[in-house]
């Protein structure tokens, strides 16, 4: 089976400036998140995948198809939801989606049927006969999603899909994206500034920084590793407490004022930590329990590549 995205020394120059520097990597998951600070090259990468920009060196393949050499063939598999406003203002929502589906090659009758289905599916059924120009920002996002899925693509590219959406609408959209991912034989590429969006919908993450790959992380494997972190504030015999925990397979880091960070393996439950503390006469005054989140992975990638605060 072909990898979803294959980057082979991809270099892209825009206006005489190199925006993507020799990107090399393979992304095999069906749901890929694209992360990076502003100006990292996320949109340029998406535009290159779509054939809007030609690589000056190297290549990028999506499902085994070269974005440049097999551009038309590749675009026939793609559904694209752009970040910015993109619509035809005077036509009704359903007509707009039908139009786009016909451009993708659906016959008028099928396009009309799929447009209605897509509109109802994204939750805009009641507004489908209103001109798209009168939609709110959130509704426009949903209309863009509807036009991206109406022709049944094999690859769905979503650029900042939750921009301008209120929390319930965002939640609904994330659910939709997850449903789409799980329902069909479809690959997903989601670019977002919101780590949570990517974390909730993607299996693999490509983190870009300054046009270079900062990290490629398989979230499924990370989740499988299921590393559990505890942040403790303790009073008492710290040394014996930590050595006992290490005996159980935990990794411990001791800081000042009784603060201890513990990485727990799968086999150890939290109640065993309490038991050890009770046995050693250690008081646990505060405990934070969290898993290694995408935020950690992202910040780690940014630190490794020299961005002090990991701004996005």
């Amino acid at each position, binding site marked *: 089976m072909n990898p979803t995205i294959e980057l082979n020394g991809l270099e892209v120059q825009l206006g005489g400036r190199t925006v993507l520097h020799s990107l090399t990597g393979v992304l095999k998951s069906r749901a890929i998140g694209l992360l990076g600070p502003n100006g990292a090259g996320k949109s340029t990468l998406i535009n290159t995948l779509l054939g809007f920009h030609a690589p000056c060196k190297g290549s990028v393949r999506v499902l085994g198809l070269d974005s440049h050499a097999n551009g038309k063939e590749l675009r026939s598999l793609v559904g*694209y939801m752009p970040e910015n406003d993109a619509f035809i203002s005077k036509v009704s929502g359903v007509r707009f989606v039908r139009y786009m589906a016909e451009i993708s090659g659906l016959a008028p009758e099928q396009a009309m049927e799929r447009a209605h289905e897509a509109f109802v599916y994204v939750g805009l059924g009641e507004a489908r006969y209103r001109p798209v120009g009168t939609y709110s920002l959130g509704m426009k996002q949903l209309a863009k999603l509807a036009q991206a899925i109406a022709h049944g693509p094999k690859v769905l590219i979503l650029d900042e899909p939750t921009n301008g959406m209120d929390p319930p609408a965002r939640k609904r959209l994330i659910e939709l994206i997850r449903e789409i991912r799980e329902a*069909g034989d*479809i690959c997903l590429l989601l670019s977002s500034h919101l780590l949570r969006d990517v974390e909730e919908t993607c299996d693999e993450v490509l983190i870009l920084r300054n046009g270079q790959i900062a990290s490629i992380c398989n979230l499924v494997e990370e989740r499988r590793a299921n590393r559990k972190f505890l942040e403790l504030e303790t009073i008492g015999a710290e040394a014996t407490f930590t050595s006992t925990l290490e005996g159980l397979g935990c990794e411990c880091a001791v800081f000042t004022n009784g603060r201890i960070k513990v990485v727990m393996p799968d086999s150890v439950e939290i109640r065993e930590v309490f038991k050890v503390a009770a046995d050693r006469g250690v008081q646990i005054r505060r405990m934070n329990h969290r898993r290694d989140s995408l935020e950690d992975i992202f910040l780690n990638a940014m630190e490794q590549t020299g961005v002090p605060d990991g701004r996005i």
Partner: protein
Amino acid sequence: MAVYKRRYAPYIGSLTPEWSRFFVLTRYAFAELFKSRFFVILLILGLVPSLFFACYIFIANSKTVQMLLPMGPTDLFSVDARYFTIMVIVQTQVAFLLNCWVGPVLIAGDLTNGALPLFLSRPFSRTDYVLGKLSVLVLLLSAVTWAPCLLLFSLQAGLARNGWIWSHLWMVVPIVLCSAIWILTLSLISLAVSAWVKLRIVATGVIFIAFFVPAGLGEMFNSIMGTYWGRLLNFSDMFRLILAQGFREKSASGILGPIRWNEIPVTAAWGVLILLCLLSLVVLNARLRAREVVRG
């Protein structure tokens, strides 16, 4: 993805041929155009001159009607190359006005609302896009130029009999060819303006400026330099020059105004119109991008 099921399902039906998809744009553009009452009135008015030309043919071929006229039966009404030359000129003027109304909105709307990436992220090229938009103008302007001319040619052929059609069949070529070059020039210029200027009223103004200001400058150049080459900037006259040659007009008076037949070579006229088309294509190529690249 049935409505009642409310779940995503991939599309498994058949697809239309890729070569035919540009016509989707044309179809949707026409649907939008015909929603406008003003456009429909303009189109109908554009065909009114053809009715007068049809009446002329009817009178020319009907001795009964001629007898009703004050001068009685006469050879004054002749349907020949001059008749069709004038008809093509009148109808191409109508086409110009129609083009000024329709052309400016074709691309500007898509650019304003950022719809271009939606088209170009599909198996649909920029050429397909331009072809789709161009077809709108080509079909529309054809409907008021060579199509009525050919209809009237058929009408005359039917009424005249006596082998008129065979002796005048050559005129079909200049009717279609000259109309086609003018339609193409007008369409490409107005698409280029539409891709450049987003406001309809401004775009319409720019189209007028593109035709009338160079003509004025050309006349100034002629006056100052004592030459006729400034006429190259009068695109309408260049079209008429080609038309006059196509209809084998020995004298171009009445068609070309003050210009004399052999002052400017017809090849130069062709060159000007082809250059205009190429310039328009360069503008379209520069403006129709899925993503704008800022240099620097």
